[in-house]
């Protein structure tokens, strides 16, 4: 070794035994715009630093200038895999804040839409986990059912991804017969497909060996890291906002809250899969309840709240009262009550909370979104430390990180 001592190398070139690797901001493994700067020793991850904010759009600031109903399109763009849940979460926050009562039928229609959104969200996440472990088939196969869900959205609100579905006080229009026909088709066909999808992965030797024991977290640590939703339930905590603080009449439904034990990628996959079955069951129950409404009740799709719910266009042209409300709503001339509220719904990834502070003006004084993704992404380093780089990629997709929700 002695003959090497007088060679001068750049500082750090020998001492550093690890490699710095950038995963992201745009990388096939991130499924969104965020960055991981990893230190890897061979294929083992030594440490990682997550960088977020690449698609920060200042939603909280924008919301301070908008009347309540104009904030709904902003919420679309949080978790864009399940926009209807975000929309409904926002409507429910407003309705709780303004103390509006909704007809049961509206609640049940909302439950249908929210559970469809949950299915489409979990479907993407689980099939992407499949893609990242090397099985593309599942992903391509289930896409046609996400397409069917999107067609139902389209039938209800006219758009597919950023839905802006519903209004404060109900829906913008009643569900059409086509929407219900498509829903029936979905309920008939999808359970079989989901079973096939599950059979592809759940006991698949390769899949199990790739996901079992990787990216695990204990329940205690998960709680300390602020995990919610499927990721927390996979660690064994049965916290579900739908059960703990029911909204939109979730207390009327009979469903299970699936939990895992180890909080690893495999458990997360199983929990999401089991939740999809529960969602199907909830949709079936809700659809049945809707069919039980008779007469005028069966046509109700919004509450009678003229201060917040836009009147029909033909009424605006013919009735004075409707014209006045239309004008007041469109011009944003309705003052909010003073106060603050925190209200949460069970989003695709966990507890999606809205903290609304009003000073009695026409727009929120402050609006804060509690984005589940943003909070649990901090734990990523702990989840993957010491593991293989290829497992880190699977962990990344099984956490279901959605860049829109990370950055707000």
């Amino acid at each position, binding site marked *: 070794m002695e003959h090497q001592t007088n060679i001068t190398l750049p500082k750090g070139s020998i001492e550093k035994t690890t490699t710095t690797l950038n995963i992201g901001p745009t990388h096939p493994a991130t499924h969104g715009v965020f960055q991981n700067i990893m230190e890897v020793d061979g294929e083992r991850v030594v440490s990682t630093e997550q960088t*977020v*904010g690449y698609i*920060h759009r*200042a939603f*909280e*600031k*924008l919301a*301070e*200038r908008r009347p309540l109903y104009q904030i709904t399109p902003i919420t679309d763009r949080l978790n864009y895999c399940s926009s209807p849940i975000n929309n409904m979460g926002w409507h429910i926050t407003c309705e*709780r*804040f303004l103390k509006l009562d909704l007809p049961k039928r509206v609640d049940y229609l909302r439950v249908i839409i929210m559970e469809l959104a949950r299915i489409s969200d979990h479907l993407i996440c689980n099939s992407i986990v499949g893609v990242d472990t090397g099985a593309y088939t599942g992903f391509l196969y289930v896409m046609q059912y996400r397409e069917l869900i999107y067609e139902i959205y389209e039938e209800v609100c006219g758009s597919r991804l950023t839905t802006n579905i519903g209004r404060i006080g109900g829906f913008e229009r009643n569900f059409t017969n086509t929407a219900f026909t498509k829903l029936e088709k979905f309920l008939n066909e999808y359970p079989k497909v989901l079973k096939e999808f599950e059979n592809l992965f759940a006991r698949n030797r390769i899949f199990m060996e790739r996901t079992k024991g990787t990216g695990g977290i204990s329940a205690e*640590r998960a*709680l*300390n*890291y*602020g995990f919610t939703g499927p990721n927390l339930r996979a660690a064994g*905590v049965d*916290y579900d906002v739908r059960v*703990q*603080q029911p909204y939109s009449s979730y207390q009327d439904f009979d469903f299970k809250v699936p939990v895992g034990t180890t909080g690893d990628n495999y458990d997360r996959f199983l929990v999401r899969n089991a939740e999809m079955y529960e969602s199907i069951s909830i949709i079936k129950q809700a659809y049945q309840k809707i069919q039980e409404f008779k007469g005028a009740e069966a046509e109700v799709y919004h509450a009678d709240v003229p201060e917040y719910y836009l009147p029909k266009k033909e009424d605006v042209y013919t009735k004075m009262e409707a014209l006045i409300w239309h004008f007041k709503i469109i011009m944003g001339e309705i003052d909010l009550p003073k*106060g*603050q*509220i*925190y*209200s*949460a719904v069970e989003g695709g990834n966990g*507890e999606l*909370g809205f*903290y609304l*502070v009003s000073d009695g003006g026409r727009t929120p*004084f*402050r609006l*804060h979104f*509690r984005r589940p993704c*943003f*909070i*649990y*992404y*901090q*734990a990523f380093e702990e989840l993957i430390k010491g593991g293989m780089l290829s497992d880190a990629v699977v962990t990344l997709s099984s956490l279901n990180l959605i860049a829109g929700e990370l*950055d*707000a």
Partner: protein
Amino acid sequence: MALSNEIIQNNLIEKFGDQVLNFSTESGILSFESSKEINLKILQYLYEEPSLGFTFLTDLCGVNYPDNIGAELVVVYHLHNFSENIRLRYSVSTSVNETAVFTASKLFESANWMERETYDFFGVNFIGHPNLKRILNVDEMDYFPLRKEYPLEDQTRIDKDDEMFGRG
């Protein structure tokens, strides 16, 4: 015994006396305030006291009240007790000139990024935070955009060259 807002309030008053103030209940959530010097004591008491058990930090964010001179910035903690299923809102306020508040990240790992976000948007300086730097905005930014002193752009301005934005 089921935990209720009154029990929490009495328990806190018994322990901290007149250091905890402004109790109120809105939409079912009890909220209270204290001076910023004892925020860690209160959070730790809420966390460790077995009869309270607020071990989950749901949300942490800032609010800016420019008219409250000396207490312009407010840090709001939303806590949750899962077993009793009860939420709690706790806030501390600080002056815009002296924005130091103790970090809760030693107690809750989840506070780490939420405090960075609060720092990023409001400039609250969390003392003892392991990595207090901007998170959503660029590092070079020299102001705190969610403060009320930075209004949104005037929607009626006409001097802007729309061509730069692909319009016009």
